[in-house]
């Protein structure tokens, strides 16, 4: 199956004073539709840096990266936006919902930036996928952490992305809510043929992915598959 995201020799180096920090130091990776890939590793191993590169939020210092068939090397910020639009959805540990908007308005927010009108039927459908069909008029402050994370997932799904990037999506949740979110991501990957890239500190959750990539000091230490067909 063709990869939707493919990186070769990815490096991301930062200058910190006189020192060069090698956050990522030569990583090869490919992400295919319908697979849940978890990226594991200790703090500082380069998980977030890798996920930022794979999602077009940041650009590599060296190496080649294609997202949905487009090489993103040397792209401006607005060009990267064009690459992300409609291809990538994001979920973060802190949810980052807009507190003044209702659940429906938060979920429809990406449409605004794409210049598309409100799509009530689509919104209802997406909210029903995440089990929040009855919370559409609520504000984020009226929801639990698990519900807020599911709103964030619904928001990411609204524009029918091909890849869902989930950076520590269970980090702020208790184990029960975290489990529910993980199950939801697994189900979405399978049912919607969605590629899901997951970073997590929870090794147990991480090992439930189809493919597990473990980073150490900015390099891939090991890559293993739970499903033989995706390794």
């Amino acid at each position, binding site marked *: 199956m063709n990869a939707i995201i493919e990186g070769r020799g990815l490096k991301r180096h930062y200058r910190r004073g006189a020192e060069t920090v090698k956050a990522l130091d030569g990583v090869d990776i490919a992400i295919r539709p319908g697979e849940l890939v978890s990226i594991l590793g200790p703090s500082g191993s380069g998980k*977030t840096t890798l996920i*930022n590169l794979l*999602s077009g*939020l*940041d650009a590599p210092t060296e190496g080649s990266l294609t997202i949905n068939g487009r090489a993103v090397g040397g792209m401006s*910020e*607005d060009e990267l*936006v064009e690459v*992300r*639009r*409609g291809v990538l959805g*994001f979920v*973060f*540990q*802190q949810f*980052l919902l*807009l*507190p*003044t*908007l209702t659940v429906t308005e938060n979920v429809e*927010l*990406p449409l*605004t*930036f*794409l*210049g598309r*009108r409100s799509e009530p039927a689509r919104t209802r459908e997406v909210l029903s996928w995440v089990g929040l069909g009855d919370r559409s008029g609520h504000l984020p402050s009226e929801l639990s952490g698990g519900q807020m994370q599911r709103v964030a997932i619904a*928001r990411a799904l609204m*524009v029918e992305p091909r890849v869902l990037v989930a950076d520590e999506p269970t980090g702020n949740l208790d184990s029960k809510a975290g489990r529910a979110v993980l199950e939801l991501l697994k189900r979405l990957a399978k049912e919607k043929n969605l590629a899901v890239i997951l970073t997590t500190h929870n090794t147990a959750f991480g090992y439930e992915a189809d493919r597990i990539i473990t980073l150490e000091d900015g390099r891939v230490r090991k890559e293993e598959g739970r499903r033989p067909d995706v390794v």
Partner: protein
Amino acid sequence: MSAYTLSRYASLAVKNLRRRAIRTALTVAGVGLAVMVAVSLAGFMLGYRGAIDRSIDMLGFQVMIMAKGCPYEAATMMLKGGTGLLYLPSDTYEKVKRDSDVDSITPVFVGVAQKEGSGIRDDAQEAAFTVISGVEPSSFLVMKPWLKMNEGPGYAGGRWFAPGTTDEIVLGFEAAEYEQRKVGDAFYASIQPAGKPDSVRHEFKVVGVLDRTGTQDDGTVFMPIDAARKAFNRPNQLTILGIKLKAFDSFKLREFENRWLKLPEVQVVGLQQVKNTLVGLVGTAQTMIAAVAVIAVLVALLGVVNAVLMSVYERTGEIGIMKALGARRGDIFELIWLETLFVCFAGAVAGSAAAVVGSGLVEAAIRGLADLGVSGSIVRITPSVVGGAVGASVLLGFFAGLYPAWRASSMRPVESIREGASS
């Protein structure tokens, strides 16, 4: 950007402003206060000039000839009376009357008398004096055809005094109202004749009360010019000659002035000159207040910039996620810019409304601080003044919003999300 997208951004901007309601309200109040000062000042400038124009126009003259003296005194005397009165020889009237450029002319004798003996009001010392204008109705009414007798209850049957009478007077509307005099009532005044040590008490009969004109005439007591001159013991003197020229332009006026300035004892004052003098009297104060208003507006705008910048920094994570969700730099720029414009617009509307509602207080305050020598409203806030203030505020908001909007749009999504997550 489509209208729909703009409306969505506007909705987002408004909702964000409501999130910090107190901060937004204070920022709007700051802009509103500055706009209120600016609108009130503009209304005062406009209203005062209008009031001067009306007051001068309601004199009915184009040119005045009066005894040489201070032009400021001359200007204010004509509008509200004065105490340092100077007099012309009465033959000046006959000389000027023969000038071929004169269309109509009326002599006026002004004196100040002490009211007494009515027993109705004795509560205000300054109100014990009244301006008496000796006039010649036949020529005076040519200049002021709008002067009409009040026909309301108690005023019916009013008329101008008969020629040759010495004890009949006509009261301006406010003079009658203040003294509670009706047609047929007596009016007492003490007049000190020139060169005599003692005042003489006179009893006059009110034969007419004028309708309100909104001018200095409302507070005046009118009597026949000869009777006035006799009472003040100035039989051959005049205070003013009011003149209308056949052709009135600056060239003709200059010619007329040059002709009569040759008389050693007179000054010729064009009414435009009087207007300029009065405007000049408060011009410096207006300039200073205008400077304060400009500073207030600039300070308010700095407050707006500060408030919006704070809001931007507080929403670093949200801005990051919006960019991750597909917002371009331009989208974020417009969103933040709209917030600034809304704050300035709301402040301008609130400030203008406050200025309109409070215009009466401003007028009372200005009149309390200084006697401007004009009657009628001196604060006039027109739709164009309000429109100008709102437009200028939005325009300034346009510039004030540039930096916060640029700052927000320049945030990189990775750092923004990281900072937002850690805050």
